[in-house]
């Protein structure tokens, strides 16, 4: 007898078309032309001043195929030091060779670790800490465990654009077991990730594609309605309220204000149509949807819509069955989570997957090629001062485990692209253990990035205390450029 197998199901899409939705927003629509009158979008991004910094965080699950558990190194460059295009490109056996074109903009950081143990589920515990450097909750536990602190994307948004939450995106179908893990508003306050790029785009652009006259009319209506709603919200907030109710209504009140900042950035119409038509939940669309999310992120950053974004690639224990063009004849690979375990099982007991190490390596390469796509998109923009937009901020691809099989929290990869205004030591592969002598808790990496972004503590000093309060303060010296202007 064969065990029952799970079936892939397709979630039905909205019963009304999204074009109709757009028309609905406009009321007796007059077409969908470009909303250029209030747009800042274009090939030029906002001014290259200190307020242009941004940070984008991509997260792959299940660890990477690096050295460990008697498996060879297939991820990192063969030696720390200066990165060059030719040098990286020549290391074809290492996944990071996929980023050779951006060697001069890269800062690869090994030797980092998560400080706290998980609580019954390695994936969940890793996801909890990945962007928070916070403890893992005692309760709930297991696959339901939560981070006990805010994530770095939230901190950046809170500091740099408190009127708008960070862009929080997700590629793939969310499992009931362990879906999003990345972005936290605060302790145990996990932010949902949007896995449909069209939904995210609609939220970002609000009224894209309408006649200017119609848009202006809509804006006037919204202002009038918002005035009324604000008055009512104010009346509610003037009452005696519990702490929780006040917090919720305050969030609502600020959300109204937030939306009044209409977004005008827009993707090319062909891209919009592709985005509208895609099934974001199909594993076969994994890479396409990821690239669409990246289009959104690049656009959002270039327009100044957000300066903080995350993109989670797959579930907490990502079970996507990837199809990698040119690899194994384009066949569907086993579930990625099982590949990372090297067996046909999500546990520890099962028949081996032949070539699993190599498959994991290829999945790593695929993700780094996707990361390169994001860098390509960001590179299309220059700041108003004329420099590359990428140099104003940074994009990082990381993981919530170090090595897939062992589920270790040591040597979790953090690969940055972009110097944050010359503050990061780009063009180098560094090992954080070089000066510390041992693995370095990754809260120091966050301290370095936040400070490089120009964020400061209340007393004006550099941020050196991100993450759990028990962690040792400080920075990762290897990450800081020798001529960093702000550090």
């Amino acid at each position, binding site marked *: 007898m064969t*065990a*029952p*197998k*799970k*079936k892939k199901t397709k979630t039905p899409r*909205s*019963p*009304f078309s999204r074009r109709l*939705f757009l028309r609905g*927003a*406009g*009321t*007796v629509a007059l077409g969908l032309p470009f909303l250029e009158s209030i747009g800042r979008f274009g090939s030029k991004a906002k001014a290259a001043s200190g307020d242009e910094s941004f940070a984008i965080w991509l997260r792959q699950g299940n660890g990477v195929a690096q050295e460990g558990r008697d498996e060879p190194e297939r991820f990192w460059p063969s030696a720390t030091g200066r990165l060059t295009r030719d040098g990286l490109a020549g290391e074809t056996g290492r996944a990071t060779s996929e980023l050779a074109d951006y060697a001069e903009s890269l800062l690869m950081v090994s030797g980092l670790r998560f400080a706290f143990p998980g*609580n*019954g*589920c390695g994936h969940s515990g890793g996801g909890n800490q990945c962007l928070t450097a916070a403890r893992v909750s005692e*309760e*709930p*536990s*297991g*696959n339901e465990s939560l981070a006990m602190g805010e994530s770095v994307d939230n901190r950046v948004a809170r500091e740099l654009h408190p009127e*708008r939450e960070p862009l929080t995106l997700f590629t793939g179908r969310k499992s*009931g*077991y362990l*879906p999003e893990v990345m972005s936290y508003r605060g302790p145990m*306050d996990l932010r*949902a990730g*949007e896995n449909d790029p069209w*939904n995210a785009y*609609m*939220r970002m652009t609000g009224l894209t594609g309408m006649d200017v006259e119609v848009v202006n*009319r*809509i804006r006037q*209506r919204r202002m*009038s*309605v918002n005035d*009324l*709603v604000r*008055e*009512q*919200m104010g009346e*509610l907030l003037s*009452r*005696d*309220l*519990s*702490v*929780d109710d006040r917090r*919720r*209504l305050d969030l*609502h009140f*600020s*959300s109204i204000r*937030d*939306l009044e900042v209409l977004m005008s950035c827009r993707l090319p119409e062909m891209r919009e149509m592709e985005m509208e038509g895609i099934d974001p939940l199909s594993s076969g669309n994994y890479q396409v949807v990821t690239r669409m999310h990246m289009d959104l992120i690049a656009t959002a950053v270039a327009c100044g819509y957000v300066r903080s974004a995350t993109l989670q690639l797959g579930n907490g224990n990502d079970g996507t069955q990837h199809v990698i063009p040119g690899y194994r004849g384009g066949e569907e690979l086993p579930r990625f*989570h099982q590949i990372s375990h090297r067996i046909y099982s*999500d*546990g*520890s*007991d099962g028949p081996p997957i032949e070539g699993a190490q190599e498959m994991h390596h290829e999945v790593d390469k695929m993700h780094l090629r996707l990361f390169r796509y994001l860098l390509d998109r960001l590179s299309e923009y220059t700041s108003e001062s004329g420099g590359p937009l990428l140099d104003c901020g940074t994009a990082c691809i990381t993981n919530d485990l170090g090595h897939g099989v062992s589920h270790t929290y040591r040597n979790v990869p953090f690969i940055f692209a972009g110097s944050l205004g010359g503050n990061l030591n780009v063009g180098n592969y560094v090992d954080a253990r070089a000066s510390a002598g041992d693995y370095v808790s990754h809260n120091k990496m966050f301290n370095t990035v936040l400070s490089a972004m120009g964020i400061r503590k209340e007393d004006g000093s550099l941020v050196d205390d991100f993450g759990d309060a028990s962690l040792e303060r400080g920075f990762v010296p290897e990450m800081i450029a020798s001529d960093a202007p702000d550090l």
Partner: protein
Amino acid sequence: MRATITTRTTLPAALALLLGACQGAIGEPTGRTDPSDPSDPSRPVDPCADGACDPEDAIPALGSAYPRLSHGQYENTIRDLFGLSETPGLTTGFEDDPSGTTAFDNDSTVLQVTPNLWQDYQSAAEVMASRVIEDAALLGRLTDGLPADEPDRTQAFVERFLGQAFRRPATDDEVRQFVDLAAMAPSHYPEVPEATGRVALVVQAALQSPHFLYRDEWGDPDGDGVVELTDYQLASRLAYTLWDSMPDAELLRAAEAGELTRGDGLRAQAARMLDDPKAEGKIRTFHRKLYDLSHYEDVELDGFPAGIGRTLRAEAERFVEDVVLENDGGVRELYTAPYSYVNADTAPLYGLDPADFGDELVRTELDPSQRAGLFTQPGFIASHDGDTAPIHRGIFLNLYVLCTELPPPPVFDPPTLEGTTRRERINSITGPGTCGGTCHGEAINPVGFPYETFDDFGRWRTEDNGQPIDAAAAFRFEEGTVGFDGPVELAGAIADSMNAHRCYAKNWLEYAFGRPVQLGDSPVLQSIATQSRDEGLSVKEILIQLVDSTLFRTRRVDAEEASE
């Protein structure tokens, strides 16, 4: 995130859970701790702690003064407010709400309006305003019977529409605000007749008003920090409890007449509303979510038609309808009824001849020595399959049927399963004398092993790997340790236990009231569970008793709210 452990659980996680050291008291009611501040001197204790317990001893629950509508409630409310034949689907693209601590999606303690959701609300309101303009029949319904001339027409429309949208009469200030807004129609909607633009503007604003998006349960607390809900607040709470939608005209009439705060008015309305199809939807949704019936759809069985999982889900849902809606049954029937709904596709799973069945699921009496209630149906069995199936099934029953508190799992390296039968393999690392013996020996395995009489498809079997099935076990219920041999005897033992009846009532309370259970709820739960076990209380009567309790009529404020 729901704390379910089913086949979605990875093997390490299942094994981790199965080796957890049991610190909770198995067999005791779940009784979540009260969410209030422990330092608050008004923090309640369990009124049933000393054993004696009367429903009147229930302590009003801490709760939000402004619980937000869930997405499902929003859909239903729009449907009923505009007299649509079906829900409009506006929330399909809405930002997901975070999961709370209940098994359901309406935990008011976590529902809030984020910037993304606010944008969703704004867009949805504009869609409905647009529909009012474009749909003459809809506009006609909204404006039917209004005075012909301004300003009386707008005044009357605003009063009537807000009275429905806000679930209470609008105040003079609110009416003035909306009338003033409507007067802007010529500039805001120049492309449509002014009268139409006025209606559209009011609709657009009303659907974004906090009085629409939240249920208003605010009030002045008495000296004990307790707010007695008003008639209109009770009407709203009752409608969303039983219908997940707004009050209808009859309920609003009863509220206006003050009937809900007098005598049996509330109970009478509840009984009326439970006979309405809108209540059926709520009851179906409850069972689908509690028993994770949607998960059955993931089942595929070799040799059976594609889509068998959907049929298994349909069987379970049809069974629930039969028991609860058509036969006024209760917990005992859900867990022990020796029949189900079978068609040609599923007949072989029951050892029946498919030639005797067609495509339609038909009620079929089953072998009462093999089948009893929901959890002997193939959908439950096959959706918890594989070598750790007894663990998955045992955990599910403990968490969602018996409400046993299971401790968090430890971090460990999963050992190797050894043995001939599945029971032996699991016992090799969780049985008596092993480090997992405490939790599994007493809680998880005993209610998982009886289902070993079924293969992973849910077919009856007598052997496992050539060895005879051992389906005997014992579980420590509140009433004492009860032995059973096989799934039918287990079903009977569960149906005889306070654990199961209190658990069922507790889950209904969380779903119906949209909040986690609190210690002060214990007297009401104890009373309902006792009647359910001893007198066979129907599901509908359980709901009536919930809404006819002190818990339903009151709200307790926290120290912060009381002191301001």
